[in-house]
Structure formats: structure tokens, C-alpha cells
């Protein structure tokens, strides 16, 4: 399953069983060329674009190649808040998704083992959100939270929400939306590791007089770690680049703009391509550093 992408899922294959053959080249070349042409060179394009400067006296949106490092200074000064907000929201959403996703994955992967049909059904329910438009689901929350809606009424009644205040357009609603949208991405990889977990190991812990909490901490959790790592990355990475939830037409407002919001605005609206490119490089660099640290700390070094 693709959701174990980030865990060391590959069985150890005896390297000598692999042949050298020209067929390998034939199999690899088209796909690798595609990735070089449409993944590697676009990244180089981004780096080059991020160093461009406006053509003096040129048209709106016209730039020429330069070594204009000032673009990075500019975007960090102008959009530092949005960048920090993106990583903060993404971290919170990953945490909440883990708090919901882990018990859910444990329930489906371990508790429901004795009920194969129920297990299959629960799994379908977790996958279900993938099959209905991400945007419509997010809009559904917006309407559920709307001022005249039942949730706002309840929040008003118990004093959580002052009169005239709204749930949407706040940091709460954006993090809520991100959490909701990425729960399946968190749950599925954890489920994939827990489903394979050998319950005799847990029993052995109990036989050695460890209490359930100790068994969970010293046996279950370490064995589930690859799934937790996978799930956290699959949640954090897309969440930090997302700008749908934070959009003011969805769950956000101008006060909740994230780094994706300003990349989109600079590229597609303001045609400030160098700023958009510099922001993209910043986002990519931060994520690569975080992924490297996270993966190294957790000890799963042979990724993919």
C-alpha cells in the first residue's frame, strides 16, 4: 500500500538475486527521464526564477535572470508571518490527527481483528473521504459552522462564542479543517503497521508482569513507530503547503493566510514570479530539513 511510502516497507532482497541486464535500462529510462524533465528541472527553474529581477522599464510580470538574493530577504520580511503560521498550523493539525488517528488505527488493526467484516467496513469508512471532493468536504464544514448554523448556535449558548463572532475565518477553523482532511493520511499508515503486529509480543509483555501501559509504551508503540512517522509526514507535508482550508472562501480569512496562500497570490495574481519561487524554495528547504531530522531521530533511515 502506498501509505507505507515513508516506512522501511521493502523486504530485504538478496542483492545477488538481482540481475544486471539491458532490460533494466529500458524499464527505467522513460520514467526517470519523465521525472528529470518534470520534477528536477522545474526545481532548478524555481531556483533560477527566485533569483530573477524585474526588467528595468519592462512590462508587468517581466523578469530577467540575475543573482538577486534580495528576493529571499524580501519574502522573509514580507511573508515570514504566513510561513511561520503554515508550519504552526501544520504541526497542530498533525498532532490532532495523530490523537484521533492512532486510537482509530489501533481499533481497526488490533481490536477488530476478530471481526473481519467489521474491520473491512471500518477501513472503507476511513478511506471514504478520498472519494468525495476535498473542496466540497471543506465547504460542508464551512456551512455547518456558519453563523445561522447549529454549531454556532450551541457555541453561542454555552458562551464559547460571543454574539456576532464567527467560527469560520479563525485559526481554530483552519486547523480543524486541516485536521479533518488529513486524518485518513495519518490513520492508514499506522493501521498498516498495527495490522501486521504480532500479538504474541504484547502477550509476552503481559506474561512478564508488565502492566498494560508499560506494554503499550515498550512494545506496541515502538513497533508502530514506522507507521506514525509515515503518517506524520503524510499529514505535515501537504498540510504546510495547503491553501484551500485557509482560503477566505473556505474556512479561513485574510488573518489565516498560509505560505501556500502567498505563493499562489504572488504567482497567479501579482505575477511576482521571483517572490513565489523564493517562497517555494523556502518551504521546500524547511520541509527537507524537518524530514531529515525527524527520520534520523526516529531511526528509520532506509526510507522507501
Amino acid at each position, binding site marked *: 500500500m502506498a501509505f507505507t511510502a515513508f516506512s522501511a516497507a521493502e523486504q530485504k532482497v538478496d542483492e545477488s538475486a538481482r540481475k544486471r541486464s539491458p532490460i533494466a535500462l529500458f524499464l527505467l529510462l522513460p*520514467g526517470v527521464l519523465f521525472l528529470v524533465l518534470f520534477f528536477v528541472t522545474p526545481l532548478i*527553474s524555481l531556483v533560477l*526564477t527566485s533569483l530573477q529581477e524585474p526588467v528595468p522599464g519592462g512590462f508587468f510580470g517581466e523578469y530577467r535572470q540575475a543573482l538577486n538574493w534580495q528576493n529571499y530577504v524580501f519574502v522573509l520580511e514580507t511573508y515570514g508571518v504566513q510561513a511561520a503560521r503554515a508550519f504552526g498550523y501544520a504541526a497542530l493539525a498533525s498532532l490532532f490527527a495523530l490523537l484521533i488517528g492512532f486510537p482509530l488505527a489501533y481499533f481497526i488493526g488490533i481490536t477488530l481483528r476478530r471481526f*473481519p467484516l467489521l474491520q473491512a467496513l471500518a477501513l472503507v469508512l476511513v478511506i471514504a473521504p478520498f472519494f468525495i471532493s476535498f473542496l466540497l468536504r471543506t465547504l460542508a464544514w464551512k456551512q455547518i459552522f456558519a453563523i445561522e448554523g447549529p454549531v454556532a448556535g450551541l457555541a453561542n449558548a454555552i458562551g464559547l462564542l460571543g454574539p456576532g463572532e464567527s467560527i469560520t475565518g479563525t485559526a481554530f477553523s483552519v486547523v480543524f479543517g486541516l485536521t479533518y482532511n488529513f486524518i485518513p493520511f495519518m490513520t492508514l499508515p499506522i493501521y498498516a503497521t498495527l495490522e501486521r503486529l504480532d500479538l504474541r509480543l504484547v502477550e509476552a509483555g503481559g506474561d512478564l508482569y508488565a502492566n498494560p501501559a508499560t506494554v503499550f509504551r515498550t512494545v506496541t508503540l515502538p513497533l508502530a513507530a514506522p507507521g506514525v512517522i509515515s503518517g506524520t509526514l503524510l499529514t505535515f507535508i501537504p498540510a504546510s503547503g495547503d491553501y484551500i482550508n485557509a*482560503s477566505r*472562501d473556505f474556512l479561513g480569512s485574510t488573518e489565516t493566510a498560509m505560505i501556500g496562500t502567498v505563493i*499562489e497570490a504572488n504567482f497567479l495574481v501579482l505575477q511576482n514570479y521571483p517572490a513565489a519561487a523564493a517562497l517555494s524554495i523556502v518551504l521546500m528547504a524547511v520541509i527537507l530539513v524537518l524530514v531529515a531530522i525527524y527520520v534520523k531521530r526516529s531511526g528509520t533511515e532506509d*526510507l522507501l
Partner: protein
Amino acid sequence: MRGFGKYAIWVYSGIALVFLMIPIVYTIVFSFNDSRRTNIIWRGFTFDNWLNVCDAQDVCQAFGNSILIAVSATFIATVLGTMIAIALVRYRFRFRNTTTLLIFLPLTTPEVVLGAGLAAQFLQAGVPKGLGTVIIAHALFCISFVIVTVRARVAGLDPALEEAGRDLYGSPQQVFWRVTFPLLLPGIIAAALLSFALSFDDFIITNFNRGAEVTFPSFIYTAAARGIPAEANVIASAVFLLAILLVIIAQVGAAIRRRQRANA
């Protein structure tokens, strides 16, 4: 404590599953709303939206574009990805680590970066944006998912089966198409379905590379400001019900087979 814990996880997970279903149910229910311009307030039940989906022409056209893009991108990603997956498991070659990194990196790259990068490249190369650029963009992010999914299947393949084919004087082509390929097929189909779902629902990468073309998600994004026509809910609900039906059939089938095997 133990007994309480047992029930607690049932309750907690039950609530979590219900929580996951809320916006889905909402979207489906509102596909039956007798709405006029905006589909926000409930105005009564009707089948009209379902019977006359294509009255909202822009919705239907966006849906058609999305299907065309998803089919094309899935085809490209599945073919290229399957070939790489087979090579990764079966063959020794130089630059293996570089290749693995090349496959892994797109998975760790946020969509907005992939989208902006491609758009910057198309801009520099003077390529006009359109359906073609969207198909390339979608194939790009699907390909790594295909490789990961199919590779697991190739790695799990019993080499003895192919050996038997060769022992029976099958040519390499015959062994591949009559033994290897059919055994890989479930993995390839799973990868293709995943690609299709990812492509069909993608908004961010699409938005950077679509030019003036409208896909189903980009239609919704633009329409969100002025209100979504109920026909969009109809299409999303129909796709959802069809997909869920396929998944349930596959899952229940697998569960029944497992049980039969356990009983046998």
C-alpha cells in the same frame, strides 16, 4: 480498568468514524436540495438536480475535463511507474540510490512547490498552459505512488512461478505476459485506481498549470465565493457512491475469501 478501556476504544473510534462521515453525508444530502442559485440553506427535497445534472453546463464540462485528465495521467503514471517498480526489485543497476531518491523526493514535496515549479518551467520554455500541462503535472505526482504500490507487489512475487514458466520452455515474453503480468495485475489496478482518485480530486497543482481550462475541483474553488450549484454535489455524490460500491465489493470479497481459507 481493562474492561473500561475496551469499551472506551469502541466509543472513541465510533465517534471518530462518525466525525469522518459528517461532511460526506452533508454533501450527499445537499445534492437533493431544492436550491435555486446557492446551495447553502435547505429548501426541500428534490430529485431535479440528479435528473438534470447537465443543466449546469459548466459543471458538466469541468467534470468531463477532469475525467479526461485523470484517465490520461493515470495511464502515463501507471505505465512508467510499473516499469520502474519492476526494474527496482528485479535488476541491479548503477545509480540505484539516486534513482530511489528521485522517486522519493516528489512524495516529500508539497503540491504548491510542484505546481509552482512546473508553472515556472512552462513559463520559461514558453509552453502555453492547458489540458496537456495539467496531464503532465498529474502524471508527475501519481508516478511515485504507483511505484511504491506496484513495487510491494513485485517484491511479494514468488520467483518459482516464473521459473516454472521458463522450465516449460516459455520465451521471456511469454513468461512475462502469461505469468508475471497477471500476478502483478492486482497491484497495478490498485495503483491505477489510486492515481485516478488523486488526479480527479487534485486542485493545487492543477491551479498552477491549467491556464483557462476548468476542472471539477477548480470549478468548485472558483464557485465557492458565489455559491456552489447543487449539480456539483450530484456529481461528487455519484462518483463517491460508485467508488465506495467498488471498494465494498472488493473488501467484502477479500474478507469472505479469507474466511473460506481459514475454514478450509
